[in-house]
């Protein structure tokens, strides 16, 4: 009787499971098959070619560029975002004057869609945009330049946009977690003569460690995948191929360059990097006491 009731209840989960299977799991699994086909356009015929696409990737300089840029984006922005967000969160937990204003401002980048974000920063970095206007105002027009049209500065601009758009969200999430830490813990440390710097790293960090791990995972996924929109909208990978990254390349090869099968080999590798990264982050932040 009880068992039958359980099964009847679980029937309620079938529509959601089915949906998840058809629209999430199915496409993800077929990805692996498509990555082994020669396939030039979405409505063109496919032929199975095994590991050919992957062998071609090994000799594709644009792909190597994309790997390098994706890794750089992760290695540079992840520590800045997580450490910066954690310090802001600790600052907010002290409820200094004006902390409500800071909290409210932290939420504004969350509300921007990728196109809004991209278009805002298109204006910021345009030849006659905000940054150059600011330099003009300082009387340093000599340093003004077309930021998005030169390889190095375009790469830096993309890093800036990634940090700008995501550090505040992470800070807001960490601040909520830190609110749940009992004040007594910090008070005891303060009686022992611990300053804020030591309380930050020796008390708050270990207590929130696992949650920091979760925030790091979300940030990692965002940087790896959603940065495609930032690249597409700011530089289209250029000048040349200097700012392509892995997720942008998947889109660009599939929809602009008629290399659908080939692009799916990159998508498979991208997915692999995602899974490995998540496992690595989980290991790094596992509670170890």
């Amino acid at each position, binding site marked *: 009787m009880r068992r039958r009731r359980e099964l009847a209840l679980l029937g309620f989960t079938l529509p959601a499971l089915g*949906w*998840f299977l058809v629209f999430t799991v199915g496409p993800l699994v077929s990805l692996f098959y498509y990555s082994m086909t020669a396939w030039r356009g979405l409505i063109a015929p496919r032929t199975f070619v095994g590991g050919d696409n992957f062998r071609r990737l090994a000799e594709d300089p644009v792909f190597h560029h994309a790997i390098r840029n994706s890794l750089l984006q992760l290695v540079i922005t992840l520590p800045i975002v997580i450490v910066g967000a954690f310090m802001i969160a600790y600052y907010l937990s002290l409820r200094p004057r004006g902390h409500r204003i800071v909290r409210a401002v932290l939420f504004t980048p969350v509300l*921007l869609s990728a*196109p809004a974000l*991209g278009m805002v920063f298109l204006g910021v970095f*345009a030849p006659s945009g905000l940054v150059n206007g600011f330099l003009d105002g300082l009387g340093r027009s000599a340093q003004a330049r077309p930021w998005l049209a030169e390889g190095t500065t375009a790469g830096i601009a993309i890093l800036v946009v990634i940090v700008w758009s995501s550090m505040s969200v992470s800070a807001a999430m960490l601040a909520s977690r830190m609110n749940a830490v009992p004040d007594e813990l910090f008070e005891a440390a303060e009686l022992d003569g611990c300053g804020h710097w030591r309380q930050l790293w020796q008390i708050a960090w270990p207590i929130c460690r696992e949650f920091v791990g979760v925030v790091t995972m979300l940030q990692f996924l965002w940087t790896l*995948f959603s940065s495609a929109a930032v690249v597409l909208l700011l530089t289209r990978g250029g000048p040349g191929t200097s700012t392509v990254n892995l997720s942008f390349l998947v889109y660009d090869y599939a929809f602009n360059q008629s290399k659908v099968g080939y692009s799916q080999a990159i998508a498979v590798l991208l997915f692999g990097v995602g899974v490995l990264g998540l496992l690595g982050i989980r290991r790094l932040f596992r509670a170890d006491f």
Partner: protein
Amino acid sequence: MSRAMRGAGPLRLVAHLGVWVYVLLLLVPLYYLAISSVKSNTAILDSPFNPFRGLQFDNFARAWEGGSLGRGLINQAYITVAANILTLALAVPAAFALARTRGRVGRIIERIFALGFLVPGFAALVPTVLLAIRLDLFHTREFLILLLPASALPLSVVLLTQAMRTVPAELEESAIIDGAGPLRVLVSVYAPLTLPTLTVVLILNFLSFWNEYFFALVIAGPDPAVRTAQVALPLLSMANAAQYGVLAAGIVITLVPVYLVYVLFADKMEGAVFSGALKG
């Protein structure tokens, strides 16, 4: 409060200064956006930070017509509302069942949804387009309505399951004694008691559906009849290469609904973003 920031040591000064400079850096691009949207192009170039120079308001009309943003916003609203309803219709019954079962199967299903939260849908961009073609729904808004709930289901189910677990079993039992079936119990006992979490889920999904870009771009596509305002926005920049004012006005138009929701639900929104991460 014994943990207040007292004194004025050098480290404290650096902390205050650092945070407020950061706040400033967050606000400056938005300030620039807002004032550019009401300025003529020459004023944007000549005095980029002065909000009172060269005021003109026809940027909004030009963005509205040039990008057919009205149509885009209607398409986007249609997709967002329909996908939100569909998500709830799928997630609420699933969460109800998971909250009420104690068996192993239930736990496994819950685990699937918890992990699904970390599946990056972007990786499957091309196979998803192919699915749309197979279903004969390529370049339609309806495929987006079917697709978007799948990405929102994991988090919605997990959050709602946890909320429904807190509903006391006695309430359910007395309803069953009164002859209520599972559906009746769900509608008249669970739904009202989990209204706060339902609101959080609705807001989270509204934000992510409204702001969807890549799937809207490759599936609905750029045809003005079906494209969303998000897809129209970047096209506006190409059509008005040297007209940042028009583009800025376009961005402001697409942001209005989101900021309205934010102002109305600010307190719940912060909880929503937090729980979004906590349950991952």
